[in-house]
């Protein structure tokens, strides 16, 4: 147990701190526990007294049974009352706990707002404008550099390049034109073959194609 002191020394730094609210909640919860214990005690007592009253009636001791039942009634009333108190205590506890959560939330919101403000101070509007201006200038400069570099080809070279491009386009078009007439021919050949099949089949097929 000697090491207990060593452990306690760094207690404050790592463990949750106990606030006044925590103490208040503990007190309330202890009262709740007491009320619960009280209720349990009364409930077992009621159970026992019911048995005893039955026994007394069996033995013909009606007066004593009546007395016992009166006492029982009193206990029951007490039980009802303590239920009411218990409810109050529990509601109070919940409210305290919830209020604590709310306080925490507000504190976090405040912290967040402060942090945001500090960040905004770093991002001054004029600075941003200046930054955007600078970056636009840098971009323009970059464009100029690329233009200069692109312009390094001679006139003749440019013409060659354009001629090659034209040739490519022409070849592409020629291919398209050359292929177009093929399509209807193939269709016709297909249609020539159809009469071999029975006319009903053709009808069916035409209908299917229409779909």
């Amino acid at each position: 147990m000697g090491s207990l002191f060593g452990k306690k020394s760094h207690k404050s730094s790592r463990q949750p701190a106990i606030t006044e609210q925590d103490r208040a909640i503990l007190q309330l919860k202890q009262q709740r526990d007491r009320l619960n214990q009280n209720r349990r005690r009364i409930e077992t007592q009621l159970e026992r007294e019911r048995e005893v009253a039955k026994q007394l009636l069996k033995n013909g001791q009606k007066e004593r049974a009546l007395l016992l039942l009166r006492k029982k009634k009193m206990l029951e009333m007490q039980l009802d009352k303590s239920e009411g108190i218990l409810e109050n205590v529990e509601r109070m506890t919940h409210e305290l706990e919830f209020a604590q959560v709310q306080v925490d939330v507000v504190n976090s919101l405040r912290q967040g707002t402060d942090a945001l403000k500090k960040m905004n101070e770093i991002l001054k509007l004029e600075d941003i404008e200046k930054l955007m201006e600078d970056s636009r200038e840098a971009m323009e400069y970059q464009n100029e550099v690329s233009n200069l570099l692109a312009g390094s080809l001679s006139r003749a070279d440019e013409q060659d390049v354009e001629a090659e491009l034209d040739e490519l386009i022409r070849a592409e078009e020629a291919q398209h034109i050359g292929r177009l007439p093929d399509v209807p021919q193939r269709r016709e050949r297909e249609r020539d073959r159809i009469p071999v099949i029975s006319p009903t089949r053709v009808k069916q097929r035409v209908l299917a194609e229409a779909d």
Partner: protein
Amino acid sequence: MSSTNISDISWYYDFPPFFTLQPNLDTRRKQLDAWCSLVLDYCRLKKIFTFDVNDAKKFPLFFNTKINRQLDNNFIQVLLEELRSRGNIEWQDKNKRHCLVLWKSIEEWAKTVHHWITSRGMNGTVCTFYELLYSDDTLSAEFHKIDENLFRRILMELERRGQATVFSDNGAEGVKFL
């Protein structure tokens, strides 16, 4: 579980030499191994959390009426020392009379409690010892109605991990979980 026979958890329990400390060291080692696991299994089954040397004569496990054998005091001492060296018991007093039986280690217990708290979103709340040990809320929890000394020891472990703070106010004892 109360009707479980001890012989059901160990076949050697009805074997008379099991109750006499074996002179051969190899055999003795095996015998102590078997006794240790038997004690722990038994305590886990019966939910026993403490052991008092003064009550050793009343501890059912150390008597086998069927074969009329019982452990003598020396054997019990050897057995307890063996359990201690394995970390399965923890003495509560200097005289070594009263101990916690840890069929689940303190670390594991601490994890169990912390897991229970976390799964119920009870982090940051204050609880009384009574509420955690005896209220209907913890009926299904493994730590319901465990020994209070063991519970304190578990909370101490949770404090060490920075997951709880035990405090008292006007005689009311409580714990705040993180």
